[in-house]
């Protein structure tokens, strides 16, 4: 899982105050479900991203609890209101304790 946790996000560079924009996020992760068996018949232990949070200037947009039925390389697309200029913060929490973060600034017109 060494190559896990590379997040990518798509956020517009600017918006009008109060505008609704669409955000898309992807993170590279195997999302090992804990239900699969390896070649020797042993269960491969669960290892997933278990939580994803998107905030803007300290206010929450969405907070997701992920289960093993979420696909490899978890993808989320959602709308957000942009009340002012500022910064989006996206955070992914891994079963192994890792926390991955990505920030994106947005201007207002």
């Amino acid at each position: 899982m060494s190559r896990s946790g590379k997040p990518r996000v798509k956020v517009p560079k600017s918006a009008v105050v109060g505008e609704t924009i669409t955000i898309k996020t992807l993170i590279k992760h195997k999302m090992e479900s804990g239900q699969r068996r390896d070649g020797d018949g042993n269960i491969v232990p669960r290892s997933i991203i278990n939580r994803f949070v998107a905030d803007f200037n300290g206010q929450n947009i969405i907070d997701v609890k992920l289960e093993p039925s979420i696909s490899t390389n978890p993808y989320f697309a959602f709308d957000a209101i942009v009340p002012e200029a500022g910064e989006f913060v996206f955070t992914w929490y891994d079963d192994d304790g890792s926390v991955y973060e990505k920030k994106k600034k947005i201007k207002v017109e």
Partner: protein
Amino acid sequence: MALNRREMIWISSGTVVWTALGSIPSFASKASDLINELTSGAKLGEGLIDLIAPEIAENGNAVPLDVSAEGAEQIMLFGEGNPEPIIATYNFGPLSPSRGVSTRVRLAQTQDVIALAKMGDSSWQIARTTVKVTIGGCGG
């Protein structure tokens, strides 16, 4: 060459678990038990959730689901035919206008996907749609 059942020839390369398509094991009660528990048996309204899924999954390992319910605080997704039915729980914050999200999920077989929404007034909404997961391979 020996292919085992799971590596079977015609299964879309994505299908997660190759279970009998003809005889779907019943995880359905597991999902409804869970929903009953969560809602304490409250009345489940219908019509306020938009749940969009493909008719047929291109890849059972990554089925796009799009769900939204204006005014919802929380939406949960369930796959009735998955060994563990719960897929995700979405909590929406003040900056979410549409209370909606698109995700890709694993569906082990043809099944109903259920969305359960807890609305701002503490009432519940439910919606379901069928997604077919097929072996495929014979299109002309």
